[in-house]
């Protein structure tokens, strides 16, 4: 009876040997921090995944295999859903802004948390660029390297659009009047993001076209050109 009650007590939700299971009397099979981070990602617990992976990267900064995973966790935390990219059509008639804004977080969807989204996306980019450039190539046989290249393209394009949207949306509606508040540093950051994303892939090609279109706009400053392009491209 004791045996049966012990079984029923668990109700099938915990493994007898699970470290999280609370069965202190059974021998615990410890998971590594990498495994815990993996589980957190699978569960969509991105805060925990970022914390664990950040610690792992800090402990062993030359193990670059973890960087793309940490970058993906930061990007997910920012509101960037990679599955939307899988179904997006960057080669169609829509502009980069239209395509990406359709699934990226905006000040409307994130409200006061939008600046945090930008910070997380920026952290994602910084994590990937911390991998030495010579190791970050699309022709590498290392899976993490090719993943880093593709992610960097996507995140830089996304960051450029998100930064621009900061000046075209209020927390309630599309509001291009805020473009007047864009500083030279903001404009430079947007252009740098698009330039970093430029390449031959779908999003990369769209970013390159965006830069060419911005340069072709009338205006004396980058802010004016970006503002003009922003309104024309929507």
């Amino acid at each position, binding site marked *: 009876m004791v045996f049966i009650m012990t079984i029923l007590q*668990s109700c099938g939700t915990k493994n007898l*040997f699970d470290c999280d299971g609370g069965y202190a009397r059974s021998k615990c099979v410890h998971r590594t921090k990498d495994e815990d981070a993996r589980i957190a990602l699978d569960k969509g617990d991105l805060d925990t995944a970022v914390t664990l992976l950040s610690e792992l990267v800090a402990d062993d900064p030359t193990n670059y295999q973890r960087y793309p995973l940490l970058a993906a966790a930061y990007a997910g935390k920012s509101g960037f859903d990679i599955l939307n990219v899988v179904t997006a059509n960057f080669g169609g008639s829509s502009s980069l802004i239209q395509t990406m804004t359709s699934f990226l977080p905006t000040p409307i969807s994130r409200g006061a948390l939008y600046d945090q989204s930008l910070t997380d996306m920026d952290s994602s980019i910084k994590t990937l660029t911390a991998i030495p450039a010579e190791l970050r190539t699309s022709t590498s046989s290392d899976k993490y390297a090719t993943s880093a290249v593709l992610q960097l393209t996507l995140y830089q394009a996304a960051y450029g659009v998100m930064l621009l949207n900061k000046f075209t949306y209020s927390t309630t509606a599309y509001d291009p009047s805020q473009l007047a508040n864009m500083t030279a540093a903001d404009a430079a950051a947007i252009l740098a993001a698009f330039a970093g994303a430029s390449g031959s892939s779908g999003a990369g090609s769209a970013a390159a076209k965006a830069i060419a279109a911005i340069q072709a706009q009338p205006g004396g400053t980058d802010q004016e050109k970006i503002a003009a392009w922003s309104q024309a491209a929507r």
Partner: protein
Amino acid sequence: MLPRRIFVVFFTLIQHSGIFAKGSAPVYEDPFDIAAGGASLTRASQAGMIFSNPALIPYGNGFHRWFGNEATVIVGKDSVEFAKTLQKGNKSSTDTPAEKQVKFIEQVMKSPIHAGVLNNFAYINKYFGVSTFNRGEVDIQAKKYGDTGLPAIRFRAESYQGVGVSAASMALTQVVSVGATAKYIYAGEPDLAIDLTDQEGIKKLQSKSGLKSLIAMNTGLGYDAGMLIFLQGYNSDYRLALKADDVGGTKLKGDGVLKELKQVYSIGLGYTLHNGIDAIHLSLDYRDIRKCYDEALFKRVRTGVKFIVRKHLGLAAGYYDGWPSYGVELDAWIVRLTGSYYTRELGAKPGIDPRKVYALGLTTGF
């Protein structure tokens, strides 16, 4: 249009791609035995005896023990939930086609597809047993965040077919029995994980040689030996079992990746309370004593209980792979229905990759 291409490749993989990795478990286990924690060294169901411990064969009533067929279907709980979601559909939703597509992919990511079949056809008498067996399970899991942070898919399968022939005999009156099984195995364990950016893996899948190596099966002849010490009382029995799986190591030949089944020693303890019609059997197995497969303890310790009521109703509960398992069996003379629920931990540690499964079996025989 990289993303579109990725999308197509991503779902093409589901159709083409394939392990659970052979561990200390026998090549064939009866689902009701698994429901009782998989502790089958001291008590196993019909054909299960041939593969769990051939020394169990001599114990029972009469010369004839079993002749019949067993067919079991295995379905992952997540797969069932997924099917329910598909059935409900998304007709009333105001989502755009792209949003529906993303929601569908997200649902696929949340619901690993796990399914399988088990079959055996066996004849067993007091001294001898022969059984064909077929065990196949497939597991397809898509992850939003693969090992490199991009969506990835993993295809794992295990396929074991073959024949087992056992001979067993009592020694030292009825206290000790010894048995041996010779088994011919035809087995494959494809395992493939592909990230979106894994061009090598995608190329491999698209080539004939790549596909051939993925689904290649190996064959081999192996031997098991078992011993049972059985102390029988008026209302209670005590059992101690010792088993050596794949004596000397079973070498497998072929193009597949599975090349050897390692020699494994296991020990089991059993205690039965009975009154001639009803019985409660408690069992505990400690598998792979020498840790040849380097499996964690939770995979090697199996324990459970079988409660047989009036010889026709069986209830089982236990711990299999460290997770609770349950089962019920209704024995209507020549037809037996079995339902089991258990969890297979596909990860090396608890909680990493569990699969909750239902197993429904129909047995006909006498």
